[in-house]
């Protein structure tokens, strides 16, 4: 029977089977496993049924710990239940995994194996997470390809039902989970044939039920626990046979043969690699090549069922001729004798070799090595290096491959020019922008080629770690034979560059083959393009004799109403010139795909795309190379010569995309990096930047405050600094007493760092009387202004910052004189979070330590290559760290505890040394008022004096105090994160920290959705909003976190929306920090996940407040101490209808298109909720607290 061929990724392959064979699915989003849960939710919400004809129930939990608990409960109640997770999420499931396994419960957890956070977080793939669960009692089955993911998802389900051992089915994060590949889809009959309904009934019969009550999960004592633990042995003994039987049955159904261990290579191999995961495919490809070309006696032992590890199955698969084995682990266990798979292999072979009849003539030599941590490329050259190493008499053990370890010299050298080019395979690379649809178009192309032709197709996509102006590189392969190359394209037949400027950023043509095809999206036509490209690109085109094509895709997109989406156009070009398909057939297929994708979204979209296809070919031109000369455009250095050495020598390589070349010695040993590095990565991503009109500026400071990337700076300074200023440097007289006479005032943009979001322009309250569309800041093309403004910016930086002690902190316009110590982050263009983060850095940055929950803010705050946290001229600035997602409040509390201890100890030492130091200064330090900037300034001066005195005292205590005396200056602890952390996964800790009474400041950057992982519902999501896991609109109201905090009484609580009321925001931040106790600020943060143009963010924030949806208030316990009502409501009565706010945003409006009646019903509920909450807060804010107190007193 012919089965359907589909081109899907590993996540979809796993979810497809999991959704078919389960009844309950409990998940929590975590990269790279999130799509499995999302797909399941989508399928269930659209009524897709499992093989028994019922729609699985899908629930998103507050954490992976919660998901595991729910899975455990659902299993105990008899449902077939699954979950999907990775990395830290899997760690949170471990306690329940022990329970589930201990109770012999059938389930399969599908895991996209991902790196665990150690010295750094990484979202990419390795086996460190799954290896941390190998002791739980779960069986572990590894898939090496997308086809295997689908197949093993089913095999593991069949095996768990029969063996009663729970299974962890894992595959490599990103490389397999996100690789799009043509595979054969199992049909429902296949699945039904594999799943024994009697076993399902047995599973159900073991459920807890009051109709047949029993106890499970008792507590046991030393007398019997041990014996009880040993009862499971027979199940583990049987598990491998049961799994093999399932594999055998699968073979009879599908014809695909799998075994617990499989051998690949020469039957008489002497050197064998043992490994599991996606690298297996690469190893197979390499072995084929080496055997064919050199006849080497080499092979590969593929481990599929890692737990329970069946030694006899393993040994039987090894060729009897084997003399040397190299075991490759995709994980690292520091301090261990070796990595887990290596240890298992050594033990297995040793055990059998010590038996009476050893299987091998001589004990094979076994080495172990690490490869591929955090999705590090694993290429044929590396496989060859491992085999070559085994040729040596004393091959390196405990080696690494894929890096250059110049410190402990573990690494194997590999030949970078050893590149395989399988026959009949076409490789293509596409460089694009995240926002231009390149990846989407390529996914479409793979679908067309994979599903509409006999060809195999593979796609893998590499994304930028920046969220604004991000670039993507698509790696595509097509061919007549199955594709086993599980690594990036190394030699391309075709390269498409979808943005001209990327020629300056990447060595785009580095990997192109001689005579290959190069397609460039260029505003310059075929006759002039050569003069405009960098010389290096011209050279490559000529020397490699490329077929070079240009198209002005933006022009075609504009003419056909496609905006900046050039996906359809570039896809059409690819098919027209690559020769992958006959041109006419390709065009027809593209149109079919367009119809498929867009017919549900209206005829107009379909017609528009058709028009784009039709207009493309007329605008596609081949560039004649004859007579073409190399341009004189040289690429600029990646970073300035003025950058620090570390930036120039190391970080610049990462910026350039050459991070793989960084040596071990160049990386910090403990994950510590210098501050202030983002300033050196000039990204130049803005098409337009703001230009200041000093003639009409009123110096309100709003532009600088709202700027998400700290690209608009304000300085007031003595006029004398203008003497050497560039001629185009603008200034005006500062309006404010604090500026003094003869001052100058400048607002300056950082032209190469600005992202062009236009929020500064939008918020500017001034209109030019001569032409009202102009304001005091106006957007103008960056390219023409770049050099001029670069010089102005550099000059601006030489002007001293305004004296902090002179700033009137309480005014927006003054507050913006404070230097931002958070700048040029990789956050989205127009980000709604970063203005708050930046404000913290301005107001308190020079004395702040930050605990940052994992999420958007930890990514734009701490993702390499460069980071935005910086320091002032005195060398002070925020000290930042990220622990985990779930523990951030506690992490911050720990910082506070430590700082308070240091402060306390310093004070004790200070008091003890008062006679030597001098009582006056000691008293001044101990009793210092540090409630404002001048107070802190004075204390710092005292501490400097103290240091001088201490250096003269020869006592142990003096030395101790010297190391601690900086803690005598006030330190501010800020605990930051998104709503996913604060409302969901971290809420327990957050609650405890608020209850602790400790002086910490909590900033909740509330986007009302999990932004970083792609828009999953959180408990902060508003009623009626559509989000992942709330496709029909969230039916329940947003959790009122502020009210929960207010209930403690002694917590400072504020709700703010900078775009709606910046003064209230500023006051809240100042009051929160000044409050000597816990404070929490919940900050409305617009987000691209809301589905509107970020340029309109200010208008949206105002609408959120005006509708009463987002109430502004401050609850200050200090007021209660004064007998006043602590709650100050800063919002007025709702003045616009909720729908006038909601339906500005896709997250709400899309429901009116998918479920119009339901949308109306939810809107009504949401509107009622808004009024209810408004009345409640208004009432609370009007309660006369002093009266109540006196009544109590009189009763006494």
């Amino acid at each position, binding site marked *: 029977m012919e089965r359907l061929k589909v081109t899907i990724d590993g996540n979809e392959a796993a979810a497809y089977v999991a959704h078919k064979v389960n009844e309950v699915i409990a998940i929590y989003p975590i*990269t*790279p496993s*999130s*799509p499995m849960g999302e797909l399941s*939710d*989508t399928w269930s919400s*659209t009524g897709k049924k499992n093989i028994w004809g019922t729609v699985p129930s899908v629930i998103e939990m507050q954490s992976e710990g919660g998901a595991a608990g729910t899975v455990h409960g659902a299993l105990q109640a008899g449902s077939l239940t699954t979950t999907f997770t990775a990395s830290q999420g899997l760690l949170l499931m471990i306690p329940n995994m022990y329970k589930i396994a201990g109770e012999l419960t059938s389930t399969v957890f599908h895991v996209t194996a991902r790196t665990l956070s150690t010295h750094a977080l990484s*979202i990419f793939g390795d086996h460190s997470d799954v290896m941390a669960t190998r002791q739980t009692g779960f069986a572990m089955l590894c898939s090496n390809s997308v086809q295997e993911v689908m197949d093993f998802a089913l095999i593991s389900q069949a095996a768990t039902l029969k063996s009663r051992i729970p299974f962890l089915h894992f595959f490599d994060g*990103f490389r397999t989970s*996100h690789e799009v590949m043509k595979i054969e889809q199992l049909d429902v009959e296949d699945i039904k044939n594999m799943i024994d309904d009697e076993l399902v009934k047995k599973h159900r019969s073991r459920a807890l039920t009051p109709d047949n009550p029993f106890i499970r999960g008792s507590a046991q004592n030393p007398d019997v626990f041990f014996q009880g633990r040993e009862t499971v042995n027979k199940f583990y003994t049987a598990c491998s046979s049961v799994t093999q039987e399932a594999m055998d049955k699968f073979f009879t159904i599908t014809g695909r043969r799998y075994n617990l261990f499989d051998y690949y290579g020469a039957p008489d191999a002497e050197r064998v690699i043992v490994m599991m995961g996606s690298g297996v495919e690469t190893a197979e490809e390499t072995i084929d090549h080496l055997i064919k070309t050199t006849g080497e006696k080499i092979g590969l032992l593929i481990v599929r069922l890692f737990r329970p590890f069946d030694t006899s199955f393993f040994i039987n698969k090894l060729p009897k001729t084997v003399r040397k084995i190299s075991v490759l682990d995709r994980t690292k266990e520091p301090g261990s004798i070796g990595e887990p798979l290596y240890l298992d292999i050594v033990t297995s072979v040793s055990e059998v070799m010590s038996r009476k009849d050893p299987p091998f003539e001589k004990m094979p030599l076994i080495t172990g090595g690490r490869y591929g941590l955090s999705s590090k490329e694993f290429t044929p050259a590396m496989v060859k290096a491992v085999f070559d190493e085994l040729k040596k008499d004393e091959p390196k053990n405990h080696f690494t491959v894929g890096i250059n370890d110049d410190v402990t010299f573990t690494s194997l050298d590999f030949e970078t020019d050893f590149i395989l080019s399988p026959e009949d395979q076409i490789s293509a690379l596409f460089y694009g922008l*995240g*926002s231009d*649809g*390149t*990846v*989407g178009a390529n*996914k479409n192309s793979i679908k067309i080629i994979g599903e509409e032709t006999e060809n195999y197709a593979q796609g893998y*996509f590499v*994304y*930028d*770690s920046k*969220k604004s102006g*991000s670039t*993507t590189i698509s790696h595509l392969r097509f061919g007549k034979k199955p594709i086993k190359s599980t690594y990036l394209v190394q030699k391309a037949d075709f390269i498409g560059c979808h943005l001209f400027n990327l020629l300056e950023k990447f060595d785009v043509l580095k990997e192109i083959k001689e005579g290959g095809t190069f397609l460039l999206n260029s505003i310059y036509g075929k006759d002039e393009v050569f003069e405009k490209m960098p010389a290096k690109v011209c050279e490559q085109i000529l020397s490699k004799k490329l077929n070079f094509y240009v198209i002005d895709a933006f022009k075609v997109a504009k003419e056909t*109403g496609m*905006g*900046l*989406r050039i996906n359809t156009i570039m896809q059409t070009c690819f098919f027209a010139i690559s020769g992958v398909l006959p041109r006419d057939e390709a065009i027809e297929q593209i149109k079919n795909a367009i119809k498929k994708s*867009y017919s*549900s*979204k*209206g*005829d*107009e*979209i379909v*017609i528009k795309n058709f028009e784009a296809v039709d207009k493309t070919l007329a605008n596609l031109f081949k560039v004649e190379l004859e007579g073409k000369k190399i341009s004189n455009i040289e690429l600029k250095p990646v970073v300035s010569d003025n950058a620090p050495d570390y930036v120039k020598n190391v970080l610049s390589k990462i910026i350039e995309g050459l991070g793989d070349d960084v040596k071990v010695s160049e990386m910090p040993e403990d994950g510590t990096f210098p501050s202030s590095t983002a300033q050196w990565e000039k990204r130049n991503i803005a098409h337009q930047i703001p230009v200041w009109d000093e003639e009409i500026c009123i110096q309100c400071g709003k532009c600088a405050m709202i700027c998400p990337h700290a690209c608009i700076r304000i300085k007031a300074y003595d006029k004398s600094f203008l003497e050497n200023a560039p001629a185009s440097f603008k200034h005006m007289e500062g309006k404010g007493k604090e500026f003094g006479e003869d001052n100058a005032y400048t607002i300056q943009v950082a032209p190469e760092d600005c992202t062009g979001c236009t929020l500064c322009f939008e918020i500017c309250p001034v*209109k030019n009387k001569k032409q*009202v569309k102009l304001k005091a800041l106006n957007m103008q093309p960056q390219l023409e202004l770049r050099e001029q403004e670069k010089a102005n910016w550099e000059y601006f930086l030489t002007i001293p910052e305004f004296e902090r002690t002179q700033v009137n902190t309480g005014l927006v316009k003054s507050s913006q004189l404070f230097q931002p110590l958070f700048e040029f982050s990789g956050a989205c263009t127009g980000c709604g979070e970063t203005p708050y983060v930046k404000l913290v850095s301005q107001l308190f940055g020079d004395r702040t330590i930050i605990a940052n929950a994992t999420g958007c803010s930890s*990514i734009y705050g701490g993702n390499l290559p460069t980071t935005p946290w910086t320091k002032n001229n005195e060398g002070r600035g925020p000290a930042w760290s990220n622990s985990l997602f779930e523990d951030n409040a506690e992490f911050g509390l720990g910082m506070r505890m430590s700082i308070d201890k240091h402060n306390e100890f310093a004070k004790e030492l200070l008091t003890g040394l008062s006679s030597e130091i001098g009582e006056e200064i000691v008293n001044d330090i101990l009793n210092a008022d540090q409630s404002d900037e001048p107070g802190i300034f004075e204390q710092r001066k005292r501490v400097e004096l103290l240091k001088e005195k201490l250096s003269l005292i020869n006592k142990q205590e003096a030395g101790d105090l010297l190391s601690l005396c900086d803690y005598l200056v006030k330190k501010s602890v800020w605990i930051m994160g998104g709503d996913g952390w604060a409302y969901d996964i971290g809420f327990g800790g957050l609650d405890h920290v608020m209850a602790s009474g400790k002086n910490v400041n909590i900033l909740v950057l509330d986007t009302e*959705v999990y932004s*970083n*992982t*792609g*828009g999953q519902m959180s408990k902060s999501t508003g009623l009626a909003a*559509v*989000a*992942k*896991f709330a*496709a029909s609109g969230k039916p329940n109201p947003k959790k009122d976190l502020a009210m929960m905090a207010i209930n403690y009484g002694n917590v400072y609580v504020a709700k703010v929306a900078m775009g709606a009321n910046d003064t209230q925001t500023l006051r809240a931040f100042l009051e929160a920090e000044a409050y000597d106790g816990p404070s929490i600020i919940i900050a409305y943060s617009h987000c*691209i*996940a809301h*589905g509107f143009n970020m340029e309109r963010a200010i208008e949206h924030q105002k609408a959120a407040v005006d509708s009463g949806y987002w109430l502004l208030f401050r609850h200050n316990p200090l007021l209660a101490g004064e007998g006043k009502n602590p709650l100050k409501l800063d919002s007025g009565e709702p003045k616009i209808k909720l729908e006038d706010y909601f339906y500005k945003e*896709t*997250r709400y*409006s*899309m429901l*009116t*298109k*998918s479920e*119009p009646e339901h949308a109306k019903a939810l809107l009504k509920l949401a509107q009622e909720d808004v009024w209810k909450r408004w009345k409640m807060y208004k009432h609370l804010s009007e309660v006369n607290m002093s009266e109540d107190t006196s009544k109590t007193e009189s009763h006494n």
Partner: protein
Amino acid sequence: MDLSTTYMGLKLKNPIVASASPLSKSIDAARSLEDAGASAVVCYSLFEEQISHEANELVYYLESTADSYAEALSYFPESGDYNLGPEEYVNHIRKLKVALSIPVIGSLNGVSNGGWINYAKKIEDAGADAIELNIYYIPTDFQINGLRVEDMYIEDVRAIKSAVKIPVAVKLSPYFSAMANMAKKLDEAGADALVLFNRFYQPDIDLENLEVFPNLELSNEWELRLPLRWIAILHNNVKASLAATSGISNYTDVLKVMMVGGDVAMMCSELLRHGVKRIGEILKDLEIWMEEKEYDSVSLMKGSMDYSSVKEPAAFERANYMKLLASYKI
């Protein structure tokens, strides 16, 4: 007393038709129009821009942020189907047809010769008795001349006519250089009625915020004069029925429309101002007047004062202007 009239083949019990307005957005309000005596209802307009804007917007926001960042390949859940075409409007027409016994006229507001033309067929399939085509076009492009604008109108009418079997009315703007010729061309293109005239909502200036803003003003009585003139001129010169709209607020206005040759008088602003009950009041006043003046049917007066029936047809022309100026004394 026979108040009945015929409008593009539709037999109507009286000449007062509720024109396109928010009053037809709810079924209950539409019912109250019928109860008050309206002889037909023109449903609120289906706007071309609305449909295309919604579709483009949704696709843009679903796609523009997708596949940009490794951890978030999309930001919204996949939904199988979106109600992005005219379905909501078409369903509403269907509901109106069930709820009302008077004719329901669908209204299409657009300009391009694009996909929206197909919406007419869907409106017809939903049971609409006729379609009113409202071509709202402000020719700001300096390269487009009058002839091209006129051709565009004609093409739209032809396209709609070829798509549906039900009658098609064209609601026109008064801004044509040669209105009579334009009316003739539309008539020849197949328009079953001409609705005179569409009021373009003119923007206003907000002096406080220095912004241009749309300011919806309801029509005034004097605005009826323009339709009166042109109905008088066109009556009997085009096959199409003629409807007057703008400024009809009492029974005298209805009488004037009938006398210059209008088949129906369309009302909106007066109903929004003073409620739908005004239809009944006006019909009553109409009957009293006709009784007093001994008109036993509307058809008797229809066209009795059109261009060819009055003693001084020049009164509808430039001479009228001269006369007016001459009568004006400082």
